[in-house]
């Protein structure tokens, strides 16, 4: 297994390449903290500040004064958790059906599902608003949660993932043991697709957390603001205090990082669980 050791140089190059990629990826995030811990005037200088300053506490205090930060975070947690849990379940279930079960019209329905991903979303705002208004869901978290409970993207992803990660033999074996379809899905397929679920989970959580186009149209009242809507109201029309905005943005990112770290273990869990296939 020492086959790679024969070439030391490429290994170092590999680390350098990955380190540079990681640094490039992290820089704007780092800079967000730099601005958030300085004052806006320091940032507008040229060349701008590149090391963190000592103003983060003051900027954060301003954020807390202007918006209900923790209330908005709580709303975001409720919405993102509900959507993520629901998406994981319903999408993996549908993905399982599309990849492992045979039923009439399956392929046509799947193509239809793919086509729905291609609809440009911008014009949906007004008709969707009419629906939500008719349901009486204005200023109600359900307006954001329910439409997102199953996504075509998630179904598509789980179907593709199941078709590489869950071989037919596994399904057949379960059936011979007398498993129902749901049991096969729950006990056999789900454990084999944990990296796929982790990926879908983190992307769904993050996407929901960061979304604002739709929430800001249906969640107007301060009490139901998500963190993204609340952060946007930090922008004054004539002048924006970037230091304050980015201090708030930085704090609002921390929950996503925590969620990523929770899911992070699952990304590699599949390797050790690969034994399922044997």
């Amino acid at each position: 297994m020492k086959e790679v050791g024969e070439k030391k140089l490429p290994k170092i190059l590999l680390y350098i390449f990955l380190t540079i990629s990681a640094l490039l990826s992290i820089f704007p995030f780092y800079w967000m903290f730099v601005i958030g811990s300085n004052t806006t005037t320091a940032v507008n200088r040229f060349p701008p500040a590149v090391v963190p300053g000592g103003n983060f506490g003051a900027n954060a205090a301003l954020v807390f004064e202007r918006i209900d930060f923790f209330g908005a975070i709580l709303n975001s947690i409720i919405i993102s958790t509900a959507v993520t849990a629901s998406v994981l379940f319903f999408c993996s279930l549908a993905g399982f059906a599309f990849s492992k079960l045979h039923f009439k019209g399956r392929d046509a329905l799947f193509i239809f599902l793919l086509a729905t991903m291609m609809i440009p979303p911008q014009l949906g705002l007004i008709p969707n608003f009419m629906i939500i208004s008719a349901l009486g869901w204005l200023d109600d978290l359900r307006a954001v949660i329910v439409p997102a409970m199953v996504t075509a993207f998630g179904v598509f992803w789980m179907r593709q993932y199941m078709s590489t990660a869950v071989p037919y033999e596994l399904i057949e074996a379960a059936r011979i043991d007398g498993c129902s379809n749901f049991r096969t899905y729950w006990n056999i397929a789900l454990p084999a697709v944990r990296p796929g679920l982790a990926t879908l989970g983190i992307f769904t959580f993050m996407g929901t957390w960061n979304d604002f186009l739709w929430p800001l149209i249906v969640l107007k009242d301060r009490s139901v603001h998500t963190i993204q809507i609340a952060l946007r109201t930090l922008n004054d029309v004539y002048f924006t205090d970037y230091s304050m905005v980015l201090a708030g943005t930085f704090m609002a990112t921390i929950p996503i990082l925590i969620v990523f770290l929770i899911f992070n273990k699952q990304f590699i869990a599949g390797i050790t669980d690969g034994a399922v296939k044997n």
Partner: protein
Amino acid sequence: MKKFLFMLGCLGLLFGLIACSSESSTDNGDTGGSGDDGGSGDPEEVELTMWLWPGMGLDEKIAEYQELNPHIKINVQEAEYSDHHTNLLTVLGAGSGAPDIAGVEQGHLQRFKEFPEQFHNLLDFGAADIKDDFLEWRWREASSPDGEFVFGVPTDVGPMAMAYRIDIFEEAGLPTDPDEVSAKLSTWEDYIAAGRQVKERTGSNMYNFIGDMFNATREQGELQYFDAEGNLIIEESELIRRAWDLSIESIDIHNNTPRGEAEWGAALAAGDFATVFLPPWMLQNIKNNAPDTAGLWNIALMPEGSGNWGGSLLTLPKQGEHPQEAYDFISWLMSPENQLDIFKTYGNFPSTPSIYDDPAVQNHADEFFNRDDLGAIFSEAAQLVDFVYRSPDTGTINTIMGDALTTVADGQATPEEAWDNAMQEVRRQISR
């Protein structure tokens, strides 16, 4: 099999969420966001929903009104400036969900003004009585062309003046006293000549971007792209021709840094251009972007008058059910006395000229700009503003003209090509 039931349960939950809420839709579905749930006790209690964007500076006054009128509750809902206007468009288009009171900013006003059926006419609630409190041009902007329909009560205004760098002017051998500057730069031709002098002797440009020159000069006349009947006159309009020619003429003294770009702040701080055309609210931007230039600025009138940039109306969407209460509130809120208080706290420049003589306005001091009478100069500017006739398509054409000048500035088109392209695009947009 248990799992199967679990799955059914989940599906049931999905349906349940959808079903149970359609029942509740009856109680607050069509109250348009003012959902007071019946108001169990006092029948006269009224809740008004008010949509604003952050930074309008009305919070204290809104609280004060509720103290004075305990039966009125005002529920302020803020959204970011552009989100706010998208939201307003959406709820009006969808036919439900609009607030009792909505702010509309000047830049968005013309599109909304096209549809009086979406708003209450303030004249029905007594707006004729407060008309004379406001700047005449501002009130006309808030009204239909014939004056029979008033869309909203004006909030602040943005009369334009010109900030200039004393040090650069001095180095260039130009006067530095504001009255002398106003006298010396009384026409745009004078301004351009002075700009060449600045460029020659100091290397700095005179101003940031030719598109801003076009905007400033374009606002100095009543008829721009359309006549009062709404006919397109852009190609015959002398105002527009002059604005265009002045912009092209002064291309050697602009810095090619539009104000929306991040570099504007850095260029400003570095003294890359010597003058800024600005309404009062932009003073703060200069202070924040270029704090090191404190004390290097002064303010004079713009050549050939003024112009307006910014300010808003408080409107009453037709969906609102308490227009009289809402009108009573907004007309109180924007009364001269209250505008004076708001000016003292936030610096929003009042739209009611009767308070311009107040010492608080006249003697508004700011060391950054070397002035102890900032209010005086903007008051003078506010009274120099011409009424400008705008159509719903004015904004569209402004964008086309701005784009055309950008292509000239970037060397992507000659002035003649850019003008021809712009006219072609204008005709196409208007004919649709």
